[in-house]
């Protein structure tokens, strides 16, 4: 059987090192299979998160050969196996152990974003009418599996550590999904500008490149949000009018 060497980061916040493990390679294998194999044989206590092993839960984020990836969706066949494959934790959040980081900041950030507030129902039975074309965009954002890989690569978080001033690409699309939801009546633009730091994003598009769900984070979410924020700031009345028109117009009748 063919084999490969995995150079895996072992340790915690206090320190650690890369250690090499050798495993067999079989057809179709993904990085997470290798990690599981190593866990089951050589390193029972090797910590990593995973749930679905199908690219659906966003638990198994790590950096494979320096690239932020879902381990369960990274085939060994796409990696050069003639040299060790490095696997290390994502960098934007504090390390807990081995491949696991403390991502709780993300959960706290989300809680601070104003929740969905629908307009009154359109029909007497308490339901709404929406056209598919009016929700396509929102559905794109709602594909997000919260793997936080986009947060990992965004320099505002990763390098500049602006956790108190910037919510990161994941939550910018979360706000976008709410703002562009045809039923929503809440206004989140002031926070976007003031406390959520949309201005920090300088459209490098690194986030979009790593998104395993291929969400067009920058083009479809962040840029339109930036435009709205600017409109809102310089022309509050005009914006209000547009917003009302937009929300009404998308009701479909």
């Amino acid at each position, binding site marked *: 059987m063919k084999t490969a060497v995995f150079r895996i980061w072992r340790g915690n916040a206090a320190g650690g090192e890369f250690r090499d493990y050798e495993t067999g390679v079989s057809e179709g294998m993904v990085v997470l299979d290798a990690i599981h194999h190593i866990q089951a044989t050589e390193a*029972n206590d090797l910590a990593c998160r995973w749930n679905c092993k199908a690219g659906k839960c966003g638990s198994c984020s790590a950096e494979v050969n320096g690239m932020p990836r879902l381990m369960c969706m990274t085939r060994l066949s796409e990696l050069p196996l003639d040299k060790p494959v490095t696997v290390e934790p994502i960098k934007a959040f504090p390390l807990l152990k081995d491949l696991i980081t403390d991502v709780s900041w993300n959960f706290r950030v989300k*809680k601070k974003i104003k929740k*969905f507030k629908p307009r009154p129902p359109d029909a007497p039975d308490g339901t709404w009418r929406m*056209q598919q074309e009016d929700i396509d965009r929102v*559905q794109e954002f709602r594909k997000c599996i919260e793997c936080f890989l986009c947060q990992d690569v965004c320099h505002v978080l990763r390098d500049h550590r602006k956790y108190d001033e910037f919510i990161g690409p994941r939550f910018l699309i979360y706000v976008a999904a709410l703002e562009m939801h045809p039923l929503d009546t809440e206004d989140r633009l002031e926070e976007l500008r003031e406390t959520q730091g949309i201005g920090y994003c300088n459209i490098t598009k690194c986030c979009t490149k790593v998104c395993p769900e291929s969400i067009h984070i920058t083009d479809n979410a962040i840029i339109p949000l930036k435009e709205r924020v600017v409109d809102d700031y310089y022309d509050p009345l005009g914006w209000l009018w547009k917003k009302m028109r937009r929300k009404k117009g998308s009701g479909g009748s």
Partner: protein
Amino acid sequence: MAEYQRHEHDVLVIGAGGAGLRAAIESAHSGASVGLICKSLLGKAHTVMAEGGIAAALANVDDRDNWKVHFADTMRGGQYVNNWRMAELHAREAPERVRELEAWGAVFDRTKDGRILQRNFGGHKYPRLAHVGDRTGLEMIRTLQDHGIHQGIDVHMEVCVLALLKDGARVSGAFAYDRERGRFRIFRAKAIILATGGIGKAYKITSNSWDCTGDGHALAYHAGAELIDMEYLQFHPTGMVWPPSVRGMLVTEGVRGEGGILTNNDGQRFMFDFIPENYKAQTADNEEEGWRYTQGDKEARRPPELLTRDHVARCIVREIKEGRGTPHGGVYLDISWIKKRLPKAEEHIKRKLPSMYHQFKQLGDVDITREPMEVGPTTHYIMGGVRVDADTQMSSVPGLFAAGECAAGINGANRLGGNSLSDLLVFGKRAGEFAAKFAREQSLGGVDEAVVKKLADEALQPFANGDKDNPYTVQRDLQEMMQHNVGIVREESEMQSALEHLKVLWERTKEVGVTGHRDFNPGWHTALDLKNLLTVSEAITRAALERKESRGAQFREDYPEKSAEFGKVNTIVWKGEDGGMQIRRETIPEMREELKRIIEEMK
């Protein structure tokens, strides 16, 4: 006395999948203080994987649909051993629960007139599944999560419950550990809701996620609650079979709902060969009619690919056994053929089944818009679980409730696709409501510190065991054993030998050792999971032995027919005085006349 971190809540919900989240929201809404525990991060529970949709008779696509049809479909699918009251409540309340999700921000696919779109699924007479492409579970869990975080619920992430604590007959708390540091925690609560999901990890080939180790089943059992219907384990007919790394990964029934067909290596569409008597009237007998059905023709009957899962799975096993399988031991599932019928079929497939397209492309090197998939049965869902009162979801232990996949009753001998997500909502809500009510009427129960001390010592035992046996090896041996002995086709002597194997595995489990420290140690976690996996494996085996007939998901080679006598009973498993597993049959209560009439009318 060791110092543990302690928490107190009116209602403690264990599990944050669809059922747990919905329950927690309801309890909080009723004014209770709520704690919600999950062993993974919030939003990652197995529910996130659900694909096809939520079954609810909204009648948005076909106005002939209503709760009665849904009820009759569910009972027929379950071979009439369902808890009919649960099936009734489920069918009546599911539409309201789905609409509520929309009010909380869910964005379902739409009909032309702007309402929630519904799709066809096996065993459902009309298009009934509200969905979002093939990622409905994600939409559901995210909606509940994003709504739930604003309801004042205390969420304890990556905390795993190891045992329930009791005060006399009633449940009074839970003993748990946090995965990050490996420290023990004690939760006291007036009422506890189990919502821990399924048991797929007891088998080698499964569609289930890491979570699904039957914890709630086992926690309830060891706390004295009864389990019911444990022999009914659903093998989904279409899991991936190749490459080995993805074996078992689900291929949604939505593929067949959109017109996908099953063929063997002779290119023959074998599902037409055998259509069960009670489905003949509603099943197409030619390919043309089947196709028209999938394209929304209301006059057409559904193709046999959309018969119930137990039946489709057995037909696939037959094809493979009789030598008509594919190179990797499956059959073909083909959606690409629809290009003969539809213009722009390629785009159509990608839009309707985006995750399937990616899953095969990325993991199997197969382009499903151009070539057929290879599929075979995979362990998917357990119909059996904690026995609960239909209306309140309380188990036989006062104060202990259960909802979702770990509870049982609604599905009988076989679950229809889409009926789980709706079950989570309907009975999650009910459990939350009645647990909060129970909590209002009670004070906190006591916690026996001696019991806690013993539990803590037991949990730490693997660290003292050195390297006698490896938890991962025991887990793997169990999975292979169950796959082989208590799988899709069952037989007395194999199951007897399973019981023998289980004894050995219990002994080995006492000996497993782990290395390293307590903080985030997956080896230790696996060691602690074993007890749950073994408990549910034994319950499945004993119940399957007890039921000497074939019905729904239970197929006995030695008793291949249905028996009228067994059609009147459920099997109940509980922990006896001596600690051994007990089993009995219990007669199903007589159905209300009104419901009987509905079933007759819909025949």
